[in-house]
């Protein structure tokens, strides 16, 4: 029954969710992030919008983690390198609960059994954990890439000094 509600109101819920996510950016940019539909002119807004939709659909279907992960990664990858702390970077997941409650209160509280709602919110919580994993993974990637960048700089230098160890270069 909740599932029906979620499917029916997907557009409204996701829209509210995306609004809440984007309101975390400076107010002067939110219009651009939200309204600019060109994916090349507005990669941040485009990614948040399209991946939020996919995430929500996957959550409703109670899909396995692998389907959730790609979408989570796409959003987290961006938030990791923006001016956010770890908490702020993953916080957008919890905003889904808020968006859901808001839509529920507007469009029919009574038809949803509380246990189903709690179950769905648990799924959202699980998503948040995935997001945290993803954030940590992105931070790790950044550090790995930074190390590789350093190595790349000195690669031929080391080669010339005959201290190249193939194993060093094979990672990544």
């Amino acid at each position, binding site marked *: 029954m909740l599932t029906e509600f979620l499917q029916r109101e997907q557009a409204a819920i996701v829209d509210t969710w995306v609004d809440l996510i984007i309101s975390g950016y400076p107010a002067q940019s939110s219009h651009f992030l939200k309204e600019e539909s060109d994916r090349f002119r507005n*990669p941040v807004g485009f990614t948040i919008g399209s991946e939020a939709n996919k995430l929500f659909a996957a959550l409703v279907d109670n899909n396995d983690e692998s389907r959730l992960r790609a979408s989570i990664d796409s959003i987290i990858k961006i938030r990791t390198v923006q001016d956010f702390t770890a908490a702020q970077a993953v916080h957008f997941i919890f905003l889904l609960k808020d968006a859901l409650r808001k839509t529920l209160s507007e469009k029919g509280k009574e038809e949803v059994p509380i246990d189903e709602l709690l179950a769905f919110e648990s799924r959202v919580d699980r998503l948040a954990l995935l997001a945290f994993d993803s954030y940590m993974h992105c931070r790790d990637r950044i550090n790995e890439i930074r190390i590789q960048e350093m190595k790349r700089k000195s690669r031929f230098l080391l080669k010339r000094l005959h201290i190249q160890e193939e194993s060093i270069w094979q990672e990544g």
Partner: protein
Amino acid sequence: MAEKILPPEELGRVDYSPPKKSWMDPKVEFRKGTFNYGAVPSSTSYLDLPFSRKWQPTDDDWQLPDNWKEIILNGLKDRLKKYRSLKVFMDICVRCGACADKCHFYIGSGDPKNMPVLRAELLRSVYRNDFTTAGKLLGKLAGGRKLTKEIIKEWFYYFYQCTECRRCSVFCPYGIDTAEITMMGRELLNLLGLDIDWITTPAANCFRTGNHLGIQPHGFKDSVEFAVDDLEEITGIRVEAPINKKGAEVLFIVPSADYFGDPHYFGFLGYLALLHEIGLDYTFSTFASEGGNFGLFHSAEMMKRLNAKMYMEAKRLGVKWILGGECGHMWRVIHQYMDTVNGPADFLEVPVSPITGTRFEHAASTKMIHIAEFTADLIKHGKLNLDKSRNDQWRVTFHDSCNPARAMGLLEEPRFILNSVCNHFYEMPENTIREQTFCCGSGAGLGTDENFEMRMRGGLPRANAVKYVQEQHDVNMLCCICAIDKATLPPLMDYWVPGIQVGALHELVGNALVMKGEKERVTDMRSNPLPGKEVTVDA
């Protein structure tokens, strides 16, 4: 006291600063990963720069000289007198906002002060306050701001968040070029000794040793010899690569990263193979062993000081003309500044390709041509034997570098070459290439490790377009003709679009080039097996 239960929308708002009311408030926070370190005193003093001292942007006190205000205002006055561009650009912006969403840093960060118009307003507001009647009378009401130390910090933060890529200037109805404004802003900061290390130290190296990396003459020779060895291993041909040879016909100057960096080096092998194959009488120089010019990111004067070596060395060696390698901002300097600041090059001749006889009239005064122009001419005249299939391991897209695209117009030459040396070439979407190309996010001296997160933000629009051709056409190679691109696009790709390699145009030329007397090639310039030539090891 009962603990307050936060609703979900409040959870993530831990000390998130609320949007500022007006941009006139200059507060900036130097967060790790988003700014560049200050220059070390040894570099600034080597270059005789003012107020050389040890400092970091995170310091509370930037140890500005007592008369800092006077220095800035006099510096601005001086530059208004010297540059019509600055004067006009200070006055005529109507703040229409056409540039706002054209900046890669704005697109990637959402920080409103990264809108080109606002970046310029940071300086313009001070100009209005002190140089216009309306500003003097009405102050803030006329859009003026009184110069404060906070504004200096804000300038530093945002003028080192612009890569001088000039994309906004393409869209501005009056051609206002934020690069000009950033350059002036940086020059003003330099007057107070606020230099960044990633620009000043390479500049000091270049001044002393002839190249940014600080490689001394014997090191340069070693590097070239190693490359000759590597090329011999790949092709079976031992090429000659003369250095400091007097009386050669052509002086060949490449960015120093070409003989040290990965993947620049593979393009360097391509140059060596090509120039050997056509039998060009050329020489490298240890004294002018740098094509790039980090001086451009510092000041017009530093640009001139570093660039002077090219003509000085061409004169000393007695060459006829100069050939330049693949580099972005190097070509901004050569095309738009070199002849003006260090010319006239009346001791050189108009470049003529000794192989095709083509006279490069478009370089009749500067006497320096781009290797893409040179190679395209060779291919057009059928002087090269090319085997495209030796690039079949690559599905290529081409990244126009900002300066060759928007400060020169070198668009078709590399595309012609690419289409001649590989079978699979795919363009990125129209509004992300050619004159609308997106910057790598690390140009103009911002490609440092400490600035990594900012670079990832700034490079997002570029990476996003690459991702699109990766999805559509399985592209696996991002080809480019800029040393900074080659250094900074690999990490950018690793982060946003894993699976994309970055390569030089002449790396692909080197792969395809069938040389007279070469052995059967089994590897490409990267020493990776060619398609169909993989060695299978039986277990």
